[in-house]
């Protein structure tokens, strides 16, 4: 009985750790969006400067690095820095601190349950649901941008060598479909994960009301 309770609480606390991570992810997303927006602004600026250079300076004068290359570099740098910062924020979440208390047996289990801040947990679960979706969407958009850059580079190379052109729209559409197909398992996983978080939320609501009503003597 004690072992079963301990094992279930361990499972629950592990899920809560995951929820905390998604919650931290959601908090980090505005920073991520700002970094990506800054990198997009820098990337578009290179296009604008390059276009002004071509019209007003000379068509034959060229910037030290081509504008397309700089465009890709700025975007990639933004994505890498953004992902690094989000990753750092998620990794900074303290998890597993409950393990020592849980090892104490039944008194530890009761102590842990009593120390839980239920309001924070419910709030974290709501954040986690949103965070999970936003993370999934952001991941797909980032992969899409990277795939478009890669395929644009490949099609431009093909065009220069074989004079075989591909419409930009076709490249973008193909990249999106490819990314969605390659991420189909992740999308399904995320969908079921959000469903499970919903169930967890309502089960915990019920458990919380029961737990608050009960008297324990450790």
């Amino acid at each position, binding site marked *: 009985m004690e072992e079963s309770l301990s094992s279930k609480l361990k499972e629950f606390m592990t899920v809560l750790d995951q929820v905390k991570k998604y919650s931290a992810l959601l908090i980090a997303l*505005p*920073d991520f*969006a700002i970094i990506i927006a*800054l990198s997009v602004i820098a990337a*578009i600026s290179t296009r604008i400067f390059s276009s002004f250079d071509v*019209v007003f300076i000379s*068509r034959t004068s060229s910037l030290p690095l081509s504008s397309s290359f700089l465009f890709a570099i700025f975007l990639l740098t933004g994505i890498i820095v953004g992902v690094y910062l989000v990753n750092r924020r998620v990794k900074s979440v303290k998890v597993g601190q409950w393990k020592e208390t849980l090892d104490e047996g039944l008194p530890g289990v009761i102590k842990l349950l009593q120390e839980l801040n239920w309001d924070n947990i419910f709030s974290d679960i709501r954040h986690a649901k949103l965070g999970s979706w936003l993370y999934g969407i952001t991941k797909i958009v980032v992969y899409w941008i990277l795939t478009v850059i890669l395929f644009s580079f490949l099609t431009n190379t093909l065009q220069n060598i074989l004079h075989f052109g591909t419409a930009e729209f076709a490249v973008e559409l193909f990249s999106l479909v490819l990314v969605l197909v390659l991420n189909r398992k992740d999308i399904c996983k995320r969908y079921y994960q959000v469903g499970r978080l919903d169930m967890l939320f309502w089960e915990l609501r019920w458990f919380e009301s029961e737990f608050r009503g009960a008297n324990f003597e450790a």
Partner: protein
Amino acid sequence: MKKAWLFLLLAIIMAAQLTVLSSFGGVSDSASVSGTSAVVVGKTNYVSLRVTFYVFADPGYTALIIFPNGTQKEVSTYHFFEVFLPKTEPVRGLGSISMSRDSEGVFVTDQEPIDVAVVSNVDESFFTYKVGPAPNGEVIFYWFKIQGNARVRVSAIGVTI
């Protein structure tokens, strides 16, 4: 909350940048020509335009470039040059003006304020009848003639700002 405002500001900057970027546009044309041919560029007066011309003489032939002021340039291999046509007056609403023979030539409208064309085998009437400043100087045409067999490529990039 401050981050939301910052993000809004960045979104406004991006929208402004995209507007600036969309004011750039480019056109190009290329053709193999023989006899007397015309290379024509047309633009509205509110566009700054840089045009690049490449003239490749056919192997074994010599092509002659004749500019409107009478200057001539003989091309036995290839010749490349650029022309910058500055913005003159920010006036819009010109309707459409063309310098063309049948469907060949340049067609300039407010929606497509720049155009280039390489028209092979033209007679003098092409230049006398249809070249020249449009009413009130709203459209500027730049042109030159090529005599002989050559391959001509024209590309132009302009901005309406």
